């Protein structure tokens, strides 16, 4: 898996490419924006082909460490295979999930400024 990071109005956008599994999950967990409790992170899954329980666990665990509402993890553009794993594990209940990344970033920005 590769992670491409960009930033918009203080929100980190991580584009995941490839496979998020036990082998690649540490790369995700150790990402600085993921670790930072105050950071809002949008995970763009358009190019994420495959996720397993280790990937779900990494995202759920990262979300727990966020200091909501200022920090938080928002998901966008998951394909059907990825969505299915979120559904089976019930993890979809924990996240705001968007079909496009711009909407996800807007949502994160609104939530952040609502606090200010």
């Amino acid at each position, binding site marked *: 898996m590769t992670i491409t990071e960009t930033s918009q109005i203080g929100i980190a956008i991580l584009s995941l490419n490839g*496979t998020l*599994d*036990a*082998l690649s999950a540490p790369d995700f967990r150790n990402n600085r924006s993921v670790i930072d409790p105050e950071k809002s992170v949008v995970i763009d899954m358009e190019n994420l082909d*495959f996720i*397993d*329980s*280790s990937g*779900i*666990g*990494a995202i*759920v*665990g990262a*979300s*727990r460490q966020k200091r909501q509402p200022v920090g938080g993890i928002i998901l966008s553009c998951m394909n059907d*295979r990825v969505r*299915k*794993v979120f559904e*089976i*594990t*019930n*993890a979809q*209940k*924990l996240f705001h999930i968007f079909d496009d990344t711009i909407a996800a970033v807007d949502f994160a920005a609104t939530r952040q400024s609502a606090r200010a």
Partner: protein
Amino acid sequence: MSSIITLTLPGDILFARLASQTASSIARLLADDQQTETESCVFAHAFELAVTEAFTNSVTHAPENATSAMVTVTFLFEQPHLTVSISDANEPFTIETPAPDIESFPENGFGLLIIRKLMDRVIYRRDGEWNILSMSKSL
């Protein structure tokens, strides 16, 4: 006709993708004649995911000193059932684990849950020093 395919791999997480992609390819090969494109994608994804989960468990729950352990993945196709069995030499375990409580933001414990939801039939047995987890699904 029944076909058997066996893949034996080092018990290293590096090989999890190889195991799961092989599972996906085999499922697809068997499904392609008989199913629509979407159906065979779903069938292949179920095996890809189940094998990733089982193989990862075999590796991550191996005893500390088992650096040279091998994991065996066996595919048995008996029309219309495809069964994949994962064998390792770890401690015995049970598959009757409860689903984790998602509200507590758990980081693990999803593997066997996923396997049970994807497959038609999941059987665990202990054979001497071996764990054998067999997972079946029909075309």
